């Protein structure tokens, strides 16, 4: 257990599998938690920048979860946010330099949005909610699940915007030549419109699933009674 003055680590919480599954859909960072809205709106005009951003965020999230989980017994409550920020900033800088070295054009295209991963609430929230309280395996599972969920969110929005706005997907033409590109979808208003519509779809699907489950429960209770 923890020493005096350090964070009390109960080591309780969801299992690694639950953390992984929750991150992908039930607690999807974009559609359920509305986190990381800055990159969600800014870099989803095409698939390539969206996937690059998702990969960079995944690297930072998984690495910071690993470090915070390893350090969790040494964290002091009043200094933990400082340690989280220091850790996240380090991995963001590594990701930024790596992109500038090996994906130079994409690094230029993403511009300040890679350094801005530092202020992505998703990463610090996972450090606080999961990594600082649970073991390494759970923290990695959580990081991978949340990264997949974040990537899924970015990819769905980018797919809608690139296909409708440019008639392409990953730069390949997928719409007929007669398709009049909806230029607005590649512009900032297109990001808000697409996010709003897809959020509505996600909410509708969740409510439908919940109402279906409720209806099944009622029928099951009814059948037991009779």
């Amino acid at each position, binding site marked *: 257990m923890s020493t*005096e*003055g350090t964070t009390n680590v109960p080591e309780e919480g969801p299992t690694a599998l639950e953390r992984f599954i929750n991150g992908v859909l039930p607690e999807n960072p974009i559609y359920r938690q509305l986190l990381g809205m800055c990159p969600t709106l*800014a870099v989803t005009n095409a698939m390539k920048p969206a996937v690059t951003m998702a990969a960079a965020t995944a690297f930072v999230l998984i690495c910071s979860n690993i470090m915070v989980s390893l*350090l969790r017994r*040494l*964290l*002091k409550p009043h*200094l933990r946010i*400082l*340690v989280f920020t*220091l*850790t996240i900033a*380090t991995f963001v*800088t*590594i990701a930024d*330099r*790596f992109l*500038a*070295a*090996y994906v*130079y054009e994409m690094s*230029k295209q993403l*511009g*300040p*949005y890679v*350094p801005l991963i530092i202020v992505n609430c998703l990463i610090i929230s996972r450090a606080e909610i999961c990594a600082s309280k649970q073991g390494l395996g759970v923290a990695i599972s959580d990081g991978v699940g949340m990264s997949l969920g974040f990537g899924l969110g970015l990819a769905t929005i980018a797919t809608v915007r690139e296909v409708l706005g440019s008639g392409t997907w990953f730069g390949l033409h997928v719409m007929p030549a007669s398709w009049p590109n909806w230029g607005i979808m590649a512009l*900032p208003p297109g990001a808000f419109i697409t996010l709003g519509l897809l959020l509505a779809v996600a909410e509708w699907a969740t409510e439908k699933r919940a109402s279906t489950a409720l209806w099944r429960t009622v029928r099951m209770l009814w059948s037991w009674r009779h």
Partner: protein
Amino acid sequence: MTQPTPGKGGYIGQAWLVILLALLYGGGLAGVENALSGKIKANKRAETYSVIPDLVPGSDPDKTDEIMVRGENAKEGLVYRTRRTDGSHVGWVLPAAGQGFADRIELLIGLDSGVTTVRGMYVLNQRETPGLGDYITRADFQDLFRDKPADRPLAVVKTDPAADNEIRALSGATISSESVAAIVNRALANFREPLRALAVERSPGNARPDEAVE
């Protein structure tokens, strides 16, 4: 008013983990920078060569020389000496950098051989505010510097330019616009005379046997 107390173990006892992590992360980042900086520089160099024909019209990138020039501030800086396909000197590309609104801005300044006119300007690297300051990368802003005088400081104005050394600021990004103009002005003040002296050295009669001169 009471002073906050450091708590049990003193300040070092409280913050030892933060200090240790800062040292470890700092060392790690230094290693990453050391490993990747060569590759990043090579990327920027390749981009520079790709825009040389636009910065100094008539230049052949394959005929460009990289020379170290001592500026007025006694520091040496890399300058690209651009030539036509026939080898004649056509101008210079001067890399320059300085503080912008958000972060460091890196520019390439295209100049004629006598350093009297700015032939072009290109933003090589910037981290200005998305949607406002980052419009300095747009061609329409960069084109504002084309054919401006290189012997007088450029001035940023918020109205239509009245003089040939004036640049209209980007709407909503005056500080970024002024930063770019200030970087250009500083670079020209530092390298104008040394480059002119070099151009005279390479003028007809002083040319190397293997090169033609404008």
